[in-house]
């Protein structure tokens, strides 16, 4: 996007600088009018949970008992020695990374393919939307547990008929995390597909034509033109999806309950167990806050690293 000075700034308005070039630097009252309603809603809904959850981390509140005591940093100390927590963090990080990358790759591949076909675009676009629309409980039970059930489900049955051998999808601790990732990819690649397709369709044509005239190969075009120009969409899509994956719980709860052992234990599942199944709100809130800190750091790094490529694309 070109940084042109806008005619809107041609008329001098007192107290306004032109440093931010492409934005009108007027902050009251109209600007407030646009952003304040949303901000108010968010503040109202988030301030109390934020503060209460933080306060809980310093207490030993258990849902079973009325009254809680201040216990200082005990919860945080417990966190440092908690092996299940450490394992849940590595699991979550790993599954988030794998899930996001795979969804992005497949979504991009599908979007590129859809743009190249002449007939049936509408069909594919509709079909690819379907998985997102199914309730997570249904995806977990029917697709996660029933489909992947080694002895009672069709996938292994088909594999056996094809002489490829059965796979221990859920019972094997090395395989189980992959099964969760597969289920999540199945459901959410649609999201990537939709956003990337739109992004691709909106790219200007001239650079591509020029490159082809210059004799660049498809691969070169893809790597040096398509991907960089697609960066803004990529950044937003990957950010949103990865933030959701960090909070993965629904699928895991239904398919493996965090097992075998702690092979598929995610942080949010641990929070849920602690806080809501065992009533240990104090420690549960602590684990939740630990995740919040981790995710915030991740998001800051992520946005910092990708800022330049987004700006270049613009």
């Amino acid at each position, binding site marked *: 996007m070109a940084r042109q000075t806008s005619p809107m700034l041609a008329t001098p308005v007192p107290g306004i600088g032109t440093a931010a070039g492409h934005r009108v630097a007027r902050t009251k009252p109209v600007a407030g009018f646009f952003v304040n309603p949303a901000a108010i809603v968010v503040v109202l809904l988030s301030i109390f949970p934020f503060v209460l959850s933080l306060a809980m981390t310093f207490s030993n509140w258990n*849902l079973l008992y009325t009254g809680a005591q201040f216990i200082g940093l005990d919860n945080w100390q417990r966190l440092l020695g908690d092996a299940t927590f450490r394992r849940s963090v590595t699991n979550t990080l790993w599954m988030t990374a794998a899930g996001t990358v795979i969804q992005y790759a497949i979504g991009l591949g599908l979007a590129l393919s859809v743009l190249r076909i002449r007939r049936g675009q509408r069909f594919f676009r509709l079909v690819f939307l379907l998985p997102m629309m199914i309730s997570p409980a249904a995806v977990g039970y029917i697709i996660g547990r029933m489909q992947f059930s080694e*002895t009672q489900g069709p996938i292994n049955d088909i594999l056996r008929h094809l002489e490829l051998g059965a796979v221990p999808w859920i*019972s094997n*601790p090395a395989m189980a995390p992959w099964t969760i990732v597969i289920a999540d990819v199945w459901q959410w690649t649609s999201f990537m597909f939709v956003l990337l397709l739109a992004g691709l369709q909106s790219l200007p044509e001239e650079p591509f034509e020029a490159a082809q005239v210059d004799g660049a190969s498809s691969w070169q075009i893809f790597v040096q033109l398509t991907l960089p120009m697609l960066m803004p969409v990529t950044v937003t899509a990957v950010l949103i999806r990865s933030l959701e994956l960090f909070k993965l719980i629904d699928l895991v709860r239904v398919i493996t309950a965090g097992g075998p*052992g702690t092979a598929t234990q995610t942080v949010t599942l641990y929070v849920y167990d602690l806080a809501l199944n065992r009533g*240990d709100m104090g420690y549960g809130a602590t684990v939740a806050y630990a995740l919040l800190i981790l995710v915030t750091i991740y998001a800051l790094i992520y946005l910092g690293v990708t800022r330049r490529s987004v700006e270049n694309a613009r």
Partner: protein
Amino acid sequence: MQIARRRLVVLATAALLGLVVTPSSVLLTRAQDRPFEGAEVVVSGPAGQVECILNWTADWEEETGATVLVNPIPFSDVDSKVLTATGTGTFLADVYYLGSQTAGQLMGAGQVLEVPAEYQESLGLDDIPEIYNQFQLSWNGKMYGIPWDGDMLMLNYRSDLLADPTFQQAFKEQFGSDLAAPQSWTEYANIAEFFSGKDWDGDGATDYGLVELPMRRNHAWNGFLSRATGYAKHPDDPAFFFDPETMTPRINNPGFVKALDDWTNALQWGPPDMLAYDWAANAQSFIGGHAALNIQWGDIGPMSVDPEASVVKDKVGFDTVPGSTEVWNPATDAWETMVTPNKAPFAGFGGWIYVVPALTRNADASFDLASHLGSPEVRLKAVTTPGCGANPSSLAQLDPAVWVAAGFSAEAADAYTRAIEDSLTDPNVVFDLRIPGIQDYKDSLEIAITKALSGEASSRAALDEAAAEWERITDRLGRDQQGQYYRESLGIAGA
């Protein structure tokens, strides 16, 4: 003249009083007929089970004038809903249909009301085995729960397969002993090995020797402990989970370790993905005819005779869970060999019961409804209705005639009731753990069990890790206090 007037006044007053009193006495009678007119009693419980009670509430509603509403909660959310309601003082229901362990936690925290004496009378408590009375319904000597369901793990097996002469001969040749319902875990393993990997029902799919409950958060605890009790519950010792004096966990003593080793070894004769089998998959597998042996609750019995779901009708035998000839004695810190296998029936899960929370809107109506449901008549009907999830909770229900009427063959009814009764009345019976923090203890042990079963750690290492975690939990909750609770739950006085 004055006397006459006085008499008139008295008469008039009497008449007036009569007029006043009579209508209210009429009202009084009517109120006593329908004491809870207009009241609403909400019963919350796991979806798919709690709706069952509506079979038996119409009469009660007629009699009392109240209305019964049911609030079904998805099974996996029951605990979280009850706990969040309790923690925020929010009304969820007038009566909770709840698992004994969660109910126990509420009892211990003073969040449920004690059952008033007048309601206890109609429950037929004398007929309920002592262990249920003491452990399931009461806490610290006070009764808080209304009986409904009893939970005892038992052995279900394919009687048709074990009675088949061809198999019997082949088995004898292979193992040198007779093919009969296994009494020890060794026999159990042999039978499982014998039947595993073959296709004995000719449907083209491999069948398995056994199917059990090893999934984390889906009864790995019960699956393991129903086996471990044979190895680690010594008949002379009332305690099982902890040393009652020091609260040192026993779960990593050689008895438990051997049990877990043997179980890990036995997995090979079950479906390859048995680690992922939840309760439903387990039941499905057995009544779908895919396994020869099964350790589970008494639900299998009624399910197996349901023609809409079962292919093994009249082919199922029942017995008490096998025991172990090698028993670890914590007192002597050594192994003991028993002549007959040491059986220690495990009342895992403890059963579903009714409790009335402190947040109820109408305690009288709630207890009235709950005690109606908990009466011997209603419980008898519930226990034979498939889909209710109510297992035998009293001795009257263990009359074989009841089960023959429900569709069992005479032989099966006999075996079924005998297995449960023997388990309930066995002096070596172990009731599920019922002290504060049960969920924490449970989860850490289940993690250890599934790690060992999946090969991620050795039984010894996994159980050591769990024991260390148990120590941390005990310390966090207060060792002395936990010790007291544990000793109380065992019924032994302690320091």
